[in-house]
């Protein structure tokens, strides 16, 4: 089932009397989620991603725009008639019911022609439980489960009624780091197996990048960029997106374009064409640095972090916006650093130039 958001807006009226402006949680959001895809809504807290999710599931009604599931306009449909499954951030499992009763709950709500017999319900519940691999926990109470197990029960409960759309609100944020990695793969697998169009919300870019087919980077209620994770990472449209994606984060310098050269501070790092002379921000991904004794970018070495597979060189540069410049290079190419200065060349594909005022991407060609 594809989902279409058409000029979707949600404005929360300001309730304080101080005459502050209304809060625009979602602002004119247009987006089509293709059938069977896993979509990650990504953004810092307060960017409107959870509101967008609530609008899709119907717990909140939009102040403008329309929502379509396939060809059905569901904008004014209450959540119970939308056929969505929602997994809450803290799971919202009914604590007084056993795992099995929790999973059965949505099925027992069915009425009329959809009504199932007891054995059909049980079969469906078992199937859903099997999908998330919690078959052996059916008689337990939620309080007797670990966080990861509760998460699975919540997913099973959302899946058991075969929703048209599966929605997950910060599905991994309550899990510890190890479990998060595991559950992430699990989510991906479940989504692949069921082929249900899935939307999930996260503030963790790594999470979003690793499992999404499509990510939507949001800021202040606006979708800044929509695309495949790698494409968005390799081609950010503005400084915000470039800064938000990537771990460790992108290094940002102030610089300028002058006479066919891209300057970081006083260092001319690239010869470029197709750009007018202007003040810019230059973003360089940590993996975009190459150690080069004669390289144009001169940094002051702070320390070296050896991580096994690769080496992080922490240095400082006068033009850097961040306090440190972090570059990641292969362990093989690392050497003993004896001098206080470390010099880099940069990989053009990992260098992004942004207009200093608008912070929009400025495209250039390498000469």
């Amino acid at each position, binding site marked *: 089932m594809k989902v279409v958001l058409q000029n979707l807006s949600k404005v929360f009226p300001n309730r304080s009397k101080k005459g502050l402006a209304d809060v625009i949680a979602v602002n004119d959001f247009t987006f089509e989620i293709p059938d069977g895809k896993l979509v990650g809504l990504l953004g810092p807290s307060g960017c409107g991603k959870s509101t967008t999710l609530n609008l899709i599931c119907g*717990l909140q009604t939009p102040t403008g725009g329309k929502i379509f599931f396939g060809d059905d306009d569901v904008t004014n449909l209450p959540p*119970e008639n939308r056929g969505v499954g*929602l997994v*809450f951030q803290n799971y919202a499992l*009914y604590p007084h019911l056993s795992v099995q009763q929790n999973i059965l709950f949505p099925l027992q709500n069915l009425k009329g022609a959809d009504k199932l017999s007891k054995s059909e319900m049980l079969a469906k519940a078992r199937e859903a439980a099997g999908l998330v691999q919690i078959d052996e926990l059916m008689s337990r109470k939620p309080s007797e489960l670990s966080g990861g197990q509760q998460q699975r029960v919540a997913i099973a*409960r959302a899946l058991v009624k075969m929703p048209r759309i599966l929605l997950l609100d910060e599905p991994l944020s309550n899990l510890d780091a190890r479990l998060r990695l595991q559950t992430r793969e699990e989510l991906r697998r479940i989504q692949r197996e069921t082929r249900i169009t899935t939307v999930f919300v996260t503030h963790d870019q790594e999470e979003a990048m690793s499992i999404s087919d499509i990510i939507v980077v949001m800021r202040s209620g606006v979708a800044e960029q929509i695309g495949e994770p790698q494409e968005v990472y390799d081609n950010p449209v503005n400084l915000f997106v470039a800064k938000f994606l990537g771990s460790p984060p992108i290094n940002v310098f102030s610089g300028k374009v002058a006479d066919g050269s891209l300057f970081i501070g006083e260092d001319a790092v690239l010869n470029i064409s197709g750009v007018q002379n202007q003040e810019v921000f230059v973003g360089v991904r940590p993996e975009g640095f190459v150690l080069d004794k004669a390289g144009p970018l001169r940094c002051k070495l702070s320390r070296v972090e050896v991580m096994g597979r690769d080496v992080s060189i922490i240095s400082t540069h006068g033009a850097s916006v961040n306090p440190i410049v972090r570059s990641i290079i292969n362990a093989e190419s690392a050497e003993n650093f004896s001098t206080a200065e470390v010099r880099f060349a940069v990989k053009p594909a990992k260098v992004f130039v942004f207009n200093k005022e608008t912070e929009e991407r400025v495209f250039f060609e390498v000469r």
Partner: protein
Amino acid sequence: MDKRNNKGWLFLLPAVLFLGFFMVYPLVDVFIYSFEEGYNSASQTFFGVGAYNYSYVLHDPYFLQAVKNTFILVIITVPVSTGVALLISAGLNSVKKLNKLFQTIYFLPYVTNTLAVGLVFMILFKKTAYSDGLINLFIELFGGSSVDFISGPYWAKMFVLCFYTIWVVMPFKVLILTSALASVNPQYYNAAKVDGTSKLRTFTKITLPMISPMLFYLIITAFIGAFKAYSDAVALFGTDLNAAEMNTIVGYIYDMLYGNSGGYPSFASAAAIVLLVIVLTITCINSLISKKYIYY
């Protein structure tokens, strides 16, 4: 016993002393009196020891009347007051506007003096030479004939007593239940809503289990409170409750101690022990039933 244990007892001492003096000792004392025939508190004498006090009390028509009244009161007021309080609280909880105002209004009777409420009930129900009372005016308006609720037929008096009791205990229950309802995480309701749960099912399958500990507390205290009812009856029917056929078990005990028929502490003790046994039994049954239905 090691030192740490001694320290623990030291901490418990104030409570143990207090409960010992004011609860355990009187309880044991009353138990002893109930077997001492014709005990006289002034001379501290009695005739003999035996179960005669119980036999007398259990054959006393006034006591049987009191037991009957008390049981009717319990059976009617406990479920009705709890049920109505639940309805009112659920209503209050779903009202968004003026929620606080309504809560205050519903709580007002709690801070009103029992006797003042009794006076209001008199005005509503009492039939005098000059007026039939407000309720009778309504009854007559709809073509019925007036009833003397305060000194008329038994069922009318019992109706007023139950009405009054429910009215008096309601505010506390509403207060407890509204806060219990408000403390249910709204996420559960959202989850139920997304799953297409009907309002009724949400209430019975989610709300009720979530507030069940509070509900159970209210039912237990309501049972105990109704079994110990006395002042309500006095407020409505005056102190001569036996004559009004409206006596309760506690009223009977009081009468045996101080009332018109006063001066029989042995009979009072026996009646008190009978009441204790009844309340204890009911509470135990309640606890057993609750284990099945209460979710903590």
